[in-house]
């Protein structure tokens, strides 16, 4: 009986991530619009966009190969699997031991690999711009992310997400310098990975300012819908990671009753709302950086992660 409940919870999490992702994107857009004194599109607009795209026919470039057609599904699969493994309203999911933090980071890296390949597939210059810039950003964002995982894993004693969340929620975590530095670095990396301002503008129409949009320039119809959904899920994944790693209060653990799950769900909704508002405020307050300032930005995140790791190593000797 407990096993079926666990499977149900895991299935619910997978469905939740899929369904709630466009809502978060719509919410962030709405808050940004309000901050800019516009009315903004409705909260459900991303769903309408996806529905519209899914029904349209795909226009394929003549030079596109099978990889171009398969990549959206691969990208979607990698992102969905990664997002299903990050605890949202409950930890200790049935399959949480299959992939730890390092594997989740690597799964997102796989999605990005195929996206970059798809950008190069049609053989246009804009695809090349997007892919090469994405390669540069990824070459610094991924090590920064790993150097954030290290101090968290060292402090909590495991790379397993449920264990880290449980440790951070327990009183023995305390206020740790390394975790604080890791939090600042994580926010910087999350902004870079999700292609938000100041690293990349998700709403731009100027090709020379694009990174993510340039890689998907040739996609249309259901392929574009898959990729947009994957990008929204990635944003939700990072918001859930932020909530679960650094603010894990209210998470239900497996085996508790339905009331605990309800509390977990409510606290998750609250945390993601707060994160969405903060993201919108940050995006409105700051301008997009020059492309070659991004390596310095990410280099700073990398250094903070390295510093956090150093602190953990050094404080173990006391």
């Amino acid at each position, binding site marked *: 009986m407990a096993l079926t409940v666990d499977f149900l919870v895991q299935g619910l999490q997978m469905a939740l991530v899929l369904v709630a992702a466009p809502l978060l994107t719509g919410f962030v857009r709405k808050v940004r619009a309000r901050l800019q004194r516009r009315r903004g599109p409705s909260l459900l607009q991303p769903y309408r966009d996806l529905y519209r795209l899914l029904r349209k026919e795909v226009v394929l470039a003549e030079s596109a190969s099978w990889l171009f057609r398969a990549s959206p599904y691969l990208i979607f699969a990698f992102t969905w699997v990664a997002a299903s493994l990050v605890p949202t309203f409950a930890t200790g999911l049935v399959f949480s031991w299959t992939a730890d933090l390092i594997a989740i980071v690597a799964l997102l890296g796989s999605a990005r690999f195929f996206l970059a390949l798809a950008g190069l597939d049609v053989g246009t210059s804009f695809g090349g711009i997007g892919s090469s810039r994405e390669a540069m950003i990824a070459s610094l964002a991924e090590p920064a992310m790993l150097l954030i995982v290290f101090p968290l894993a060292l402090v909590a004693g495991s790379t397993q997400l449920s264990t880290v969340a449980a440790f951070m929620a327990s009183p023995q975590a*305390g*206020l740790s*310098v390394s975790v*604080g*530095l890791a939090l*600042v670095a994580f926010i910087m990396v999350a902004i870079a990975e999700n292609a938000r301002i100041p690293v990349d503008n998700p709403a731009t129409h100027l090709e020379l300012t694009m990174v993510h949009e340039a890689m998907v320039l040739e996609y249309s119809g259901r392929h574009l819908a898959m990729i947009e959904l994957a990008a929204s899920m990635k944003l939700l994944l990072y918001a859930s990671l932020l909530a679960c790693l650094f603010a894990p209060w209210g998470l239900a653990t497996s085996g508790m009753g339905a009331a605990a799950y309800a509390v977990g769900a409510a606290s998750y909704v609250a945390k993601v709302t707060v994160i969405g508002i903060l993201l919108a405020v940050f995006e409105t307050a700051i301008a997009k950086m020059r492309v070659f300032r991004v*390596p*310095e930005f990410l*280099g*700073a995140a990398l*250094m*903070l992660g*390295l*510093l956090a790791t*150093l*602190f953990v190593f*050094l*404080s173990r*000797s*006391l």
Partner: protein
Amino acid sequence: MNSLVFEIAHMLAASLVLISFVQLYQDRLYALLNTFALHSLALACSVAWQAYIQDAPHLYVTAAIALVFKAIVIPVVLHRIIQRLKIHREIETVVGIGLTMLAGIALVALSMVVMLRVTGGADPLARQDLAFALAVILLGLLLMVSRRNAVGQVVGFMSLENGLVLAATGAKGMPLVVEISVAFSILIAFIVIGIFLFRIRERFDTVDMQVLDRYRGERL
């Protein structure tokens, strides 16, 4: 509850190190001044918290001095100087920002090693706080060394003094008269530097130290 109090003090000291790194990252003059104001604000909070823990009311005065002078007065004055002198508002660094930050990390590691070796059996949090203070001092020095613009060097000097104050309050032993005399000497130094900046700017039309180097006179 007790350990939470000490942990908050620890976090405030670490935030000072973090803000020093943010200072190293800045390349625009106004942003550097704002970061310095934040640095002094963090210092004021840290000293006030130490006053609360140690039950030492004279440290509140130190915190007030740091807040009024270094978080408000000095940044505003420097702002005015920059506007009057029309100083070039981008700060060139001697080496790139990436290398400077790597050097910063090496300095933090060095200060941790030195402090943890020198302070033998003291309380671990206090040892780390002293290490952070030394790190802030070294990072202030790095800021001075790696900036070509005179205002950048002044800010580095000020943040170095912030680190000294942090170390002194952490060590729980500095009497008020020492603090006030140190603060006043820094203030005098600052006024003198300000006067010199005006004179240099009048004479040479620039405050870039590398350009000024050419006018040094005979080279042996």
